[in-house]
């Protein structure tokens, strides 16, 4: 039995070979074991909030989206079947919730100053990487190309998993990734990362 949530703040446990897999945790949740949710949540919490921040550029919105994502996941139980990587399943949920959150925020902003502030928010404010030049080069990519690039090389999804996550054919994923890499390769700001 876990202690009262008000005094115990969970931290992600370091993953070990003995850590239950996502499938095992999901099976336990489908069987009604509520304790299996916490490790699953902690395993993906930081990734989801970072992804939401990537989409929204706003930390408060990212937290809101993160909460909504996991509440959305909760509603899948019992009876949830994970047929791909957890990130593949969560990615479209985070993306769609982020878009909805940003739209909602822009609707409730009433003053002109606030709307101007919102209009000036990301992508200019999103630092994709620690290198300002690389971040600028990434910002220059189209959203579709950047999305595939980051999913592949930051989130470690396979091409097939990316195709499933963003609901496009595999060929389209390959094409976008190819164009993203070519664009970066020819961008002066990213040249050092392609130097031999």
């Amino acid at each position, binding site marked *: 039995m876990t202690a009262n949530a008000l005094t115990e703040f969970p931290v992600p446990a370091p993953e070990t070979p003995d850590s239950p897999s996502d499938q095992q945790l999901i099976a336990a949740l489908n069987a009604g074991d509520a304790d299996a949710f916490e490790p699953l949540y902690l395993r993906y919490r930081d990734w989801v909030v970072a992804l939401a921040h990537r989409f929204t550029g706003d930390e408060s919105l990212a937290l809101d989206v993160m909460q909504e994502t996991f509440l959305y996941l909760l509603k899948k139980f019992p009876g949830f079947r994970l047929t791909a990587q957890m990130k593949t399943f969560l990615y479209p949920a985070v993306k769609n919730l982020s878009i909805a959150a940003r739209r909602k925020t822009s609707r409730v902003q009433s003053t002109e100053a606030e709307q101007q502030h919102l209009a000036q928010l990301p992508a200019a404010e999103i630092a994709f990487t*620690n290198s300002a030049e690389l971040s600028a080069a990434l910002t220059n990519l189209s959203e579709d190309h950047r999305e595939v690039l980051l999913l592949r090389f930051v989130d470690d999804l396979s091409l097939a998993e990316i195709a499933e996550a963003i609901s496009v054919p595999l060929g389209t994923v390959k094409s976008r990734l190819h164009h993203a890499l070519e664009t970066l390769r020819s961008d002066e700001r990213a040249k050092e990362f392609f130097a031999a």
Partner: protein
Amino acid sequence: MNNSDSNTRRDGEELKAPAKLVAALKEPLPRRVFVPPSVDAAILKAARQHFAPTTSSLSPSDGERAGVRGMFARILRPWLLWPTVAAACIALAGLTYFASRSSHQQFAREDINHDGRVDILDAFQLARETQSSAKPEADLNSDGIVDRRDAELIASHAVKLEKGGKS
């Protein structure tokens, strides 16, 4: 328009990124989004509520299948419900008391002084510890060093407003 020839061509080398680029993309950013413990608590509470068995979960067909024992369970259950809840609350309160005194209690990384809150006092304590001989394990900005910048990160989180600055 993608045809099979271009897809084949795009497999392999053309879709690989240089190691330096991948390393730069994967490098953790100094400022990560701080998830307040209250948010964790709210989500986990929602999870417990979602998976909690309801009082009507024992359907008439289940009771019949369980026989007499099931029938009594069905009849007695409402009578036991409130005393059970009261006993659980007392047990929970006791656990809370002992948990707060437990040395194995888990706290948020930013809760340096383990008072259950993340505020300026945590930043202050970390700043003092970095100046002393203590070796705190609180590399919050993942730069490999625990220094005043980690303390300042805690401070910036402590002053965050939840929903803009509207009162």
